[in-house]
């Protein structure tokens, strides 16, 4: 049975009828053809399908599309603005944080939320924050550096926050 949903993905409104059992990841990949979000497992273990739903990093293989009715979704395709790479995308490139690239979108989306929660993480906090994402290529070493690169850059850009802290 099909269910109508309205969902905003990467800033764009979509209305579709989806099967009740359709997972968000399949909706993104098959219906919207946003194939940057990957399926690496069927047990919510690998994190390759991680996207942001209403500000939270979620594994889109573990969410039904119908649960995202009225939700706002950001995928890796929606990260860069006006052709400028997001600092995390830049960090992964600068620090060689990817090899085959398959886990990368999920890693980046996980890190988006991680840095939102904790803009100045230690390496250990980054490693713990990546607990839900497998990478088989990099040994994580350069992924940690990539996220630190982005964190530094994002802190540098957020002058208002620093001022607020200074005043507080």
């Amino acid at each position, binding site marked *: 049975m099909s269910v109508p949903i309205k969902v905003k993905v990467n800033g764009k409104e979509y209305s579709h009828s989806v099967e009740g059992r359709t997972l968000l990841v399949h909706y993104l990949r098959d219906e919207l053809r946003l194939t940057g979000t990957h399926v690496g497992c069927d047990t919510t273990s690998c994190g390759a399908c991680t996207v942001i739903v209403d500000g939270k990093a979620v594994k889109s293989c573990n969410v039904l599309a119908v649960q995202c009715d009225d939700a706002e979704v950001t995928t890796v395709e929606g990260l860069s603005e006006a052709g400028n790479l997001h600092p995390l995308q830049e960090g992964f490139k600068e620090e060689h944080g990817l*090899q*085959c690239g398959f886990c990368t979108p999920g890693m980046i989306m996980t890190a988006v939320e991680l840095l939102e929660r904790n803009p100045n993480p230690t390496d250990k906090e980054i490693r713990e924050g990546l*607990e839900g994402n*497998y990478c*088989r290529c990099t040994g994580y*070493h350069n992924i940690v550096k990539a996220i630190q690169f982005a964190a530094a850059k994002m802190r540098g850009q957020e002058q208002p926050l620093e001022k607020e802290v200074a005043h507080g």
Partner: protein
Amino acid sequence: MGNLIGQSVKRVEDQRFITGKGNYTDDIVLPRMTYGYILRGNMAHAKINDIDVSAAKAHPGVVAVFTGKDIADSGVNGIPCGWQVDFKNGDTMKEPAHPMLVADKVRYMGDGVAIVIAESKEIAKDAAELIVVDYEELDAVVNAKEATQEGAPLVHDEAPLNKSFDWGLGDAEATAEALANAHHVTTLEFTNQRLIPNAIEPRSAIGHYEVQNDRYTLYTTSQNPHLTRLLMSAFVLGIPEHKVRVVSPDVGGGFGSKIFHYAEEALVTWCSKQLERPVKWTAERSESFMTDAHGRDHVTKAEMGFDADGKIVGLRAITYANLGAYLSTFAPAVPTYLHGTLLQGLYTTPAIYVDVTGVFTHTTPVDAYRGAGRPEATYLLERLLDLAALEMKVDPAELRLKNFIPPFDGVDEPGYQTQVALQYDSGNYEPVLKRAMEMVGYEAFREEQAKAREEGRLLGIGFSTYIEACGIAPSAVVGALGARAGLFESAQVRVQPTGKVSVYSGSHSHGQGHETTFAQVVADKFGIPLEDVEIVHGDSEAVAFGMGTYGSRSLAVGGSAIVKSIDKVIEKGAKIAAHKLEAAIEDIEFAEGKWTVKGTDKSIAFGDVALTAYVPHDYPEGVEPGLDFSSFYDPTNFTYPFGAHIAVVEVDRDTGKVELKRFVACDDVGNVINPMIVDGQIHGGIAQGVGQALFEGAIYDESGQLLSGSYMDYTMPRADDLPDFEVDRKVTPCPHNPLGVKGAGEAGTIGSTPAVVNAVIDALAPFHVKDIDMPLTPERVWRAMQPKTNGREVHS
């Protein structure tokens, strides 16, 4: 431009991956595409009495259902093996048929019995549940050594005692004598456990038959598209090779598991022909666990003898290598020519004998997994050395230093002839170990360790000094050893009229960064900007031929083929330049992107020569237009990277949990084109090697059910299981290829595993533990610390 070789250039391929624009096989959608779901046996060994697919066929949205009988009736062949290793007595290797779908029997959990093809993957999967198979379950055997015992269940009737081959290398008599006369003999019986490669991208294949021109296209997650085309067209489906195009687009990691020609590739191609519609199959992760070729799985007894000075006098190894239910593409080569031939290690051992029996079991086929045979050889040697050091009460680093082969550069000094067939190309082993010891601060660590022990803390340090044979492979040599294909590489360098360069490489990049590294070589040699070079790979229509990427071969073999073509371009360019500059060809030299008349400032730029070659209005007589060269490079020897790895661990006395505190590596992979990429390869390799030591292991129950069949049951290292890696390099160039490179893809995996295990055993010295089988889970380590037990006995 220029001076790009040796620079950590950021990767050009990253842009598409970090923006979600990668193009992996499962991302591809073709018009009128259908979706296949393969029903696999739910038992490891069973006779198929009957199969009823009528309900599945009638299910709405189902396009077709094919069974093993349909495949057999169509007259196609099974999946072939690419390497032949015969029995010692001269009998031919047992090589039972491996059908795309089975009709009579399932022989392991991954055997497909039917494929349902439907308008969507969900419908296909729904319909597969309606298939009724009448199985008669049979006894199974999963352990290689047990499978060779009288009375063990047979996987194939034509392979008595489940043996595919047996094989020996070295001097058995001299070794027996050396061990008999040794001052001390260290013996170790162990299992090098089965691993599941687990590239994060599951395998996927799309068969696309186009009736209008009678052509086939296969999109597949392959490290090796041209070999897949050859094997599938000529050996399985019997269709003309020139009618088949194989495309491997972006591939999400391979680690060996995507080298081989798999049944699903031929199956979707065959199905597409029947239906005249594209057919896509993508593995679910549980299928990946069951059907991607596994790695390792050796049962070994090894003995190493020493004289009174601690010099190794002999080494003997007897191994039962599990091959799984069928012979995968390179399976027979892995435990023999990639394992037995590496047992010289870095040491001067004068007598070596290795005996390997290749065994069928009711398990997933086993083939090359990152390192492929060389990690097994290194584990064998490096565990024996550390255990010997413990038994003889000598320092494990000193013991290694004492036994190292002296340095040789392979140019002025000859290569080193081993006791096990190979001749090492160049080596200088002491500096890598000394450097790694310096990095870890060895002496200070021993003091810290002693102090920690007084406080009841269990710190340990473990060494591993390894060598590998890479740059696979000299065709004539491997041909003599049983390879049914040559292992050269091809490359075409096409200079476009505007001076931009397209390079068509037979290597395949699935994480290695060839689009950057190869472009660095080309741009550097031509003296042109990096962005003027594009590397094309992974499409049999674009690239004339290729042998793919595995065995750390891409730069050493594929890169050398590129260099050969570059040289041809420069040579022809010189003729054009001589004509244009009105100089003698002998007076022309090429440097920094231009051909110059020696000793003058008269020169012509790369782009101008390119344009002249394609607009030959003013052109040397007798020279053909165009600037486009293909080359095939067949190496004269393997390359032999080596290195020293040191692990530092702390074991929790109460829980047995191992914390990897530091990991130090000093590798020598010859010359380096892109240090950033090489470091990345080492990092990733170390992580997989640590995975084997501490976390990973395939587990079958007695009936052949795969118990570790998901990420919930098979543990791979996560970010918080690993430390930052401390890596450094020494450089001993390869003397026999034009770039002087040796290969870096597998070094990390080969070196790291025994270092970690040795460190844990060192940490457990107060408990007099000699060995624990991998993976060193908290349970195994905890049990090893309990009184009156040892690790090996308690976890059977």
